[in-house]
């Protein structure tokens, strides 16, 4: 389907904010009490990211004036639930992140607030992922891998951001602890992404014009898609097949920026050299990779209606060909 900027920003930034909040919750127990300023800064970063994501969600609505009805279908619509859970998360996070600016707080604020905000973040991320995973017509997304992937990538991006916050504060011991965890998380993310790309390939291959009619006189080849053509202006659920080189190139970029570079950064931080700069580089690299990964998630997804829009490889006519027919060759040989 057509990837749009608001969609990319909402999903990526929600994951990033949720990941940072979870890391704050974990480190509120692990860090010494004197490090409250680090937790406060991380929470403010998380809140700022969530606010940008929230603002971009308004741009995803083409008629925001009807937004007042968005909670009408909580019973059945994951998008309704997403609006509710993400709104609740933003509110809780706002109180937890902005509270220390106006109230005299101590470490328990970060323990309790961090855990509460983390639970809300997990709920919001799960609901957002389920929104995509529960659409049977989106053949590439209709799988538990969608939930796993979105949550793992989101939490990891937040983990790398927290690593950068800790690295800039020169807290060597917490950086080492988080770096080891992120090493494992990155390997898990790489495995999940490989499985998901295989699912995308299978979905792409399983749908073609031959499956579109349910009739026996196969094979079928589209000769007229019904007064439409790429990029399917009014039909945003389909998107022209990505060229092989573009898909491969973007997957390589994801592999480089979400796996190889961050792993190199982790090895560097465990080595103890250039803590601040390296961790920031790792976080930026992973975030860039997340945007590319999410673009591929939307742009490379296969919708079931592709059977009627399919850009299948053209197979040459078996009648009109430049090659001489076998009968002609036999007759020529007999001469």
């Amino acid at each position, binding site marked *: 389907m057509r990837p749009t900027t608001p969609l990319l920003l909402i999903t990526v930034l929600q994951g990033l904010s949720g990941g940072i909040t979870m890391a704050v919750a974990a480190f509120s127990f692990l860090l010494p009490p004197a490090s409250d300023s680090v937790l406060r800064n991380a929470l403010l970063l998380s809140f700022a990211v969530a606010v940008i994501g929230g603002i971009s969600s308004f741009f995803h609505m083409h008629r925001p004036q009807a937004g007042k009805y968005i909670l009408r279908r909580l019973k059945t*619509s994951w998008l309704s639930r997403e609006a509710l859970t993400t709104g609740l998360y933003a509110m809780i996070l706002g109180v937890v992140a902005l509270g220390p600016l106006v109230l005299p707080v101590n470490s328990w604020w970060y323990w309790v607030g961090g855990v509460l905000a983390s639970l809300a973040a997990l709920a919001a991320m799960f609901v957002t992922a389920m929104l995509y995973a529960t659409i049977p017509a989106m053949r590439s997304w209709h799988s538990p891998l969608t939930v796993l992937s979105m949550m793992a990538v989101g939490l990891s991006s937040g983990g790398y951001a927290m690593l950068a916050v800790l690295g800039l504060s020169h807290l060597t011991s917490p950086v080492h602890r988080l770096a080891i965890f992120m090493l494992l998380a990155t390997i898990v993310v790489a495995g999940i992404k490989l499985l998901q790309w295989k699912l995308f390939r299978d979905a792409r291959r399983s749908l073609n014009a031959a499956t579109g009619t349910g009739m026996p006189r196969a*094979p079928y080849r589209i000769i007229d898609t*019904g007064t439409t053509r790429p990029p399917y202006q009014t039909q945003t659920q389909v998107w022209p097949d990505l060229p092989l080189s573009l898909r491969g190139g973007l997957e390589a970029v994801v592999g480089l920026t979400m796996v190889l570079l961050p792993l190199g950064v982790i090895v560097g931080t465990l080595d103890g050299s250039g803590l601040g700069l390296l961790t920031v580089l790792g976080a930026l690299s992973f975030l860039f990779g997340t945007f590319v990964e999410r673009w591929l998630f939307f742009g490379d997804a296969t919708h079931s*209606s592709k059977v009627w829009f399919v850009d299948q490889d053209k197979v040459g006519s078996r009648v009109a060909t430049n090659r001489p027919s076998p009968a002609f060759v036999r007759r020529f040989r007999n001469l």
Partner: protein
Amino acid sequence: MQLTIITDLNKCVGCKSCQVSCKEHNTAGAFGPVPDTDPYRDPDGMWWNRIVGMETGEYPNAGVLYLPKACMHCYDAPCVPVCPTGASYKRQDNGVVLVDYDSCIGCQLCMWACPYGVREFDEEHGVVKKCTMCVDRLEDESLPDYERQPACVQSCPTHARTFGDLDDPESTVSQLVAQRQGFGLLPELGARPAVHYLPRRPAPVVIDENDVLRVMEERY
């Protein structure tokens, strides 16, 4: 009641008159005009009914098949429960799936949920639009009875399209589906489409007893 349109693929010749009459009626009609920002230069705008042309079989047993594709007005329409505002809804009285433009936020989730790709996004108004089964004609009591049917059905020159109530076992559409093995598209996705197609095969010749007697009298 579940209103539906049955298309006989044996009779459809791909003339696109249903596609054009749909556009004509719904551009001029009162309910949900189809946008046309640049109709003479850009024919790839919004169409609620599209005719897909397909080449079938392998040479020398090749043929051409035309598949008119509009909203299937599914029994379990997947576009309805995903809509966060309730803008997409299925009418209880006649089974037609409609969009309330006033409460649509234009998120396009229903377009992803529809297995058939028949919902279209109107960028100008920021809402999703689709076939309404010409509900404004069906319920317009000022029209004569023969005109109270969808524009695509009325305009079909080969009478390939039949309109009626699929839930009524005595209706023409129900009997056509039952007798001619009518099928819905992509049944594996579980939407239970109301719109059916009659497969391409020789139609059984229905001979009435009176016809037999008449021919016997004429000839012998």
